[in-house]
């Protein structure tokens, strides 16, 4: 009774040939070099890195005790922040519907509209909310309007993309069945496509609201309204106790937003 390895004289096995091993080693060495090179080229002031822990302790000491004299204002502006996020999400959801319709291959009227839809998606998605905000602060002046529009522009691409993909992934058989009844294109969409993408629609809208809530807290840094303005004011004037209050308020808001969106997701889906 001989085993297969004895029969064929095959007792050695290795996952990679020696040539492959050298290739893999070379790639690993290149990665290490690239990291080493980038560290050496970014001019870190190491003294500042080493004393970071003591600086951090110092900062926390200066933040304590919290200054809550402006708490009423902070909460009011925080509420404004929530409104920016909610408003912008609602508008973006409405405006992303036609974009999703255009950018889904199975609903778009023709190739030109498909590319138009995709162009809108890419433009919207490739620009960060803060960049959009800078742009709209220049156009509309500082304030809530610029913030709302910035968030809206970023959200249209996000929602439109995910919704468009949901439309492309639907079960096509009901669509065929309703076309066979002589229903118009619009009625087929309303009866066969809309019900199928409804769950995705709500899930994406809630997710984007959750993201927008967090994004709207930093809009104030570029003057586009919301809690960020107060935060920046406090930091600029070394009012650390108030900055700490604002940070804690933002943290509470984000956690609350998470809880609310988790609850909505469970209820709706």
């Amino acid at each position: 009774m001989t085993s297969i390895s004895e029969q064929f004289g095959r007792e050695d096995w290795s996952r990679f040939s020696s040539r492959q091993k050298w290739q893999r080693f070379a790639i690993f060495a290149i990665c290490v070099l690239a990291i080493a090179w980038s560290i050496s080229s970014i001019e870190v002031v190491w003294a500042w890195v080493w004393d970071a822990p003591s600086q951090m302790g110092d900062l926390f000491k200066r933040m304590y005790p919290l200054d809550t004299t402006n708490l009423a204002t902070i909460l009011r502006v925080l509420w404004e922040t929530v409104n920016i996020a909610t408003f912008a999400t609602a508008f973006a959801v409405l405006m992303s519907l036609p974009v999703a319709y255009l950018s889904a291959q199975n609903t778009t009227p023709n190739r030109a509209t498909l590319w138009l839809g995709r162009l809108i998606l890419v433009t919207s998605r490739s620009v960060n909310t803060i960049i959009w905000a800078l742009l709209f602060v220049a156009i509309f002046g500082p304030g809530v309007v610029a913030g709302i529009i910035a968030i809206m522009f970023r959200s249209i691409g996000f929602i439109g993309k995910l919704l468009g993909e949901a439309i492309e992934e639907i079960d096509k058989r009901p669509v065929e069945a309703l076309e066979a009844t002589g229903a118009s294109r619009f009625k087929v969409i309303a009866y066969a496509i809309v019900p199928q993408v409804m769950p995705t629609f709500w899930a994406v809208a809630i997710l984007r609201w959750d993201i927008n809530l967090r994004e709207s807290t930093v809009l104030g840094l570029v003057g586009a309204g919301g809690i960020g303005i107060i935060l920046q004011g406090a930091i600029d004037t070394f009012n650390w106790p108030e900055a700490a209050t604002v940070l804690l308020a933002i943290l509470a808001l984000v956690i609350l937003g998470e809880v609310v969106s988790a609850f909505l997701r469970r209820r709706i889906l």
Partner: protein
Amino acid sequence: MLEIKDLVKRYGGGDPVLKNLDLTIEGESVVSIIGSSGAGKSTLLRCINRLVEPTSGSIELNGTELTRLRGRNLRAARRKIGMVFQGFNLVDRLTVMENVQSGRLGYISTWAAILRRYPKEDIRRAYELMERVGIAHYANTRADQLSGGERQRVGVVRALMQNPDILLADEPTASLDPKTSEQIMGLLRDLAGELKLPVLINIHNVAEAKEYTDRIVGMRYGRIIFDHKPARLDQEEMDRIYSGSPHADRNENLREAS
């Protein structure tokens, strides 16, 4: 009356799937089409309501030429052709009533469709038909809650809501268990009689075809090679219809051509 003349369907540049096919369905007969997979049964049915575009030939339903219709006229013609599918093709997330009423989409206004404000006579007819097939108590149930047989009943009622001049059924029982399958076939036969409706059924189950239909059309690789009363379908004819493969047929054609 449905009159198909010289129908050809070719996908891409390949061999035609339907080869100069002629078929006439008169009166309120229940006709079954049998044949092995790839014989072109499904394509034939889908050419009639133009879910598939015929390459050439003519299809006339009660005097209307269907092959050249476009847009509004095509939709008006489709309203008069009901279709039942193998996979039921219901909208799972809508209720049974909404699915049934979607058979009326070609008739009602867009506004009424979106707001679900169906005309009273449509609702009455829906209840009557649902009662007839035994699903009236599911009116407010979501379609995905139903069993296979129940779902196909919804599919049948949806097609009948169109008030069609002809009913096409593409393997209506292939996804069902044997018992449910017989029930659906019996239902199609009975409804055809009650509503004086010609029915054209693609079917794999030859026993059911023999039992429930008045006429059997046998297809083999794009041609009709049998068209008689069920009693005439003997073992020899069965072999003619089902033996071989499309591939073998193709080679045969090549030999004939050379």
